[in-house]
């Protein structure tokens, strides 16, 4: 089970997180800590209307946080807030062990994490940061 958890896709997605950089011209930037381990993610978002036009990030975190951040960055560009919230909900359900295809099929790679409750937060952290950034972006436009 532990080996499933570190499947190739996760390990490779994590590596790609390290190659990403921050956005110079972000509309919103959000930093979030994982109280479990002191991990930290900073997320930069630029909008075009409602949609996310660009996404930058810096992660100091474990493989799971890195992989989740990559997935978010790769799928998030062009997404509407509604789609992103949907993805976050699907991820939660998947971690709770529920069946069903998530809106972003790649999220399925985190299924083995369901069995390890103490790591759920690692996977959710980038999505929580994104949700906060969206809420702030919306507030600023309002």
């Amino acid at each position, binding site marked *: 089970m532990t080996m499933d958890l570190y499947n190739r896709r996760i390990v490779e997605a994590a590596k790609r997180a390290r190659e990403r950089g921050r956005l110079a011209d972000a509309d919103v930037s959000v930093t979030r*800590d994982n*109280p*479990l381990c*002191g991990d930290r993610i900073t997320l930069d978002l630029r909008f075009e209307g409602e949609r996310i036009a660009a996404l930058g990030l810096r992660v100091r975190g474990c493989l799971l946080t890195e992989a989740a951040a990559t997935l978010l960055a790769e799928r998030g560009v062009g997404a509407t807030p509604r789609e992103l919230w949907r993805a976050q909900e699907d991820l939660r359900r998947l971690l709770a062990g529920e069946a069903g295809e998530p809106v972003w099929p790649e999220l399925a790679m985190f299924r083995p994490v369901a069995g*390890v*409750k*103490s*790591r759920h937060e690692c996977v959710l952290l980038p999505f929580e940061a994104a949700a906060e950034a969206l809420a702030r972006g919306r507030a600023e436009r309002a």
Partner: protein
Amino acid sequence: MALDVAAMRRNFPIFAHQPPPFHYLDNAATGQICAAAAEALTTFETAGRANVKRGVYRLADRATQAFAEARERMAAYLGATRPEEVILTSGTTFGLNLAAHVLEARVGPGDAILVSRLEHHSNIVPWQMLAERRGARIRALGVTEEGRLDLRDLEAAIDRRTRIVAVTHCSNVTGAVTDLAPLVARARAVGALVVVDGAQRVPHGPLEVASLGCDIYALSGHKMFGATGAGALWIRHDLLETLPPFLGGGEMISRVTIEESRYAPPPHRFEAGTPPIGPVLAMGAAADWLAGLDWQAILAHEKRLTARLIAGLEALPGLRLIGPRDLDDRYGVVAFEVAGVHAHDVCQLLDGFGVCTRGGHHCAQPLMDAFGTVATVRASLAPYNDADDIDALLEGLEQVIRILR
């Protein structure tokens, strides 16, 4: 359906270990552990132990999950709005002290804290200490001749200067159950917080704490058939969010530097250090088991036994009951004096007949003072008690009176 007491007793390991005659009537001091709680305790401590909240290996992850589940079970038993309202503690006394510390900023010089003469010392002394730290005053509601909280003059007792009202939900001496509604209404009207000592209420079935109207509710696991060493403190979530921490240490922080610390959100902010994991799991298991019982049957059974006990006591010469005679709004906690005989001598002799009762002031000296006595004998019931227990007590008392008077 009537309660099957023999079946009930099989859920309590003590009866397999203590040879008869064994009439355990000291349940208000501590209940016996139920099988579900004993199993949870032993399994965790001997077969699955790991520290919680930090480890990622399976043993630790399972311990963390079990701990979270215990919180959920307590929340369900108490009728909390959400699990985060339940702080896991080491007991009622600790919980009430925690409350008295985190509410410190809400009490200023000249303010009043209202307790009652019916309280256990654990719901008096922490408030005295708080009053002293803040230059506030302690006031106390009186008791009626029946040993109930005297609610007649609430308008006068609770005024604009009253910041906190701390009362028991059920007396550990008279068994009287407090009618919280008028108290809560009056406290609300003046903006005072209501803290309830639920130690003696909680062993008598699930409750709906969120609809009692109080703000804080404290209890001990060992009195609700869990293990010694754990308790819970429910705090209404909107209040909880605003409160500072009490103890400092591991698990209650989000970031520590030498200069300053930032604190974690509730409930973790209030749970510093390694918690009493085994005892908490036992308490959760007890709550879960209790939640599934037929409380209508149990309460009817306890009421019958209480009636039998009170009737029997009243038939004895020189017996003085301290507490209500009527059977409504009270649980099976019955205290009395035997004229001319010291409570400890009574208890000691009763022990000779296998009857376990408690003598003394029951950590309620203001109540003893109100009744002009120093020490009483107390018999207190649990679902596993039966008519035999009551009869053994009554027969023992007859003998005691014969020997000592």
